């Protein structure tokens, strides 16, 4: 039920959500806000097997920022980027802006092991059931 701000510099705002565990990310991701994003991702992924990232409010995201998001999966190839966190997990992206989906496909990161795009594009909501327990397949 709880959500609390973990980063806000006026350009990028990140809020952590507990049900489901993850982050709601809003604003612009570029070089200046990248450190805040990486810090929030590291804190959020630590010790978790699955996290949900709500991206509906992302108005701009550069390639480096997208890489950081994809590397929250801990995919093997991410280690060298310093974003690997040493373990792997499922990362479910919600409300992904169309342009980010296009970029994910161009760069081929959409098939990164552990990464899933919520086909319904539904933002994580407080109290939402875990993936496996959701009634029906509401799309």
């Amino acid at each position: 039920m709880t959500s609390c701000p973990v980063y806000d510099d006026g350009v990028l705002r990140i809020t952590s959500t507990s049900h489901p565990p993850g982050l709601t990310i809003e604003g612009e991701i570029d070089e200046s806000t990248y450190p805040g994003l990486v810090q929030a991702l590291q804190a959020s992924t630590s010790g978790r097997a699955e996290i949900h990232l709500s991206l509906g409010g992302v108005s701009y995201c550069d390639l480096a920022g997208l890489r950081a998001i994809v590397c929250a999966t801990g995919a093997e190839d991410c280690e060298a980027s310093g974003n690997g966190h040493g373990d792997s997990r499922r990362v479910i992206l919600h409300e992904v802006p169309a342009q980010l989906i296009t970029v994910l496909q161009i760069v081929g990161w959409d098939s990164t092991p552990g990464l899933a795009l919520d086909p319904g594009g539904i933002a994580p909501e407080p109290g939402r059931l875990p993936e496996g327990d959701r009634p029906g397949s509401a799309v």
Partner: protein
Amino acid sequence: MSTDGAFRHWACVYDSDQQFLQTAVPFLAEGLDAGDPVLAVTTPANLELISAALGPRGGQVDYAESAFFGRRPPQRVAAFYRYWKNHASGSDGGVRILAEPVWAGRSAREIAAWTRMESALNVVLAPASISMICPYDTRTLDPDVVTGALRTHPAQIAGSRPSPSAGFTDPAEFARSYDTGPLPEPPAGAPAFPFDGDLRGLRRFIADRAASYGMTGDRADILVLAVSEVGAYLKNQGPGTAAVRTWEQPGAIVCDFRQPGLSIDDPFLGLRPARLEPSPGDGLWLANQICDWLEIRSGADGGTIQLQVPSRHDQEAAAQPGFSYRA
């Protein structure tokens, strides 16, 4: 990832259907025999020839018409890389690709870009286990294009017999010899933005410019993304101020960055496919994927990066519903 420099690249110069088949068929069939992924990217006429020659086995060959497998050279490179990455089995799995570029109807500028790509493949695909034969049809090609092929491929192949290309030119040297002409100067009075590292300010500027050119939706977003990635690259090169100017020309919106004192000496910048492992120039690679042109010059007076995207008058997207960028 395999980094054993396994990329192999032959030109096949042919002057008849029979000569084409004498090289193409054994190359593809050996790949099928070995259980390797095999891709034929060529003209519709040559695809039919291959299909008839291979018989039922031809059904196992992945194929594409050249014109639809990478619209421009950076996208072509990415398409080859993606095929290898998605189809090679294991870290050292190899794939075979027959890759015949389209030359007919191209402008001199495009022919230079495609020739340069043929050369650059030797470097930017070096980590990929790809065996590639590029057929060149002397019945239809300008002799200069065929001469170019012998400069851009380290070896030729006829039938199953490879031989070194005597004219092969070091790809870095080749690239530098091709990128020496000056880029068009911005027209007098072109709106300008002094970019000193403020990426948000740069995005505002270019978004406003896009709106003034009547660009909306994906078209505008793509321009903003490409310009911002170029800005991020320049920012990472160190302090300095680039003059950013935009203008419209028939069929295109151009954005030009000029930065005194900037030196760019990587002739393959923007062509190496981006990976999860970060590398300088990844952002320029993305810009190159989504723009019609991305040209880089470096000289005594500094560095210039000029990109070009389709204007609102472009109708290709309208002809292909569902495609938001020109692949």
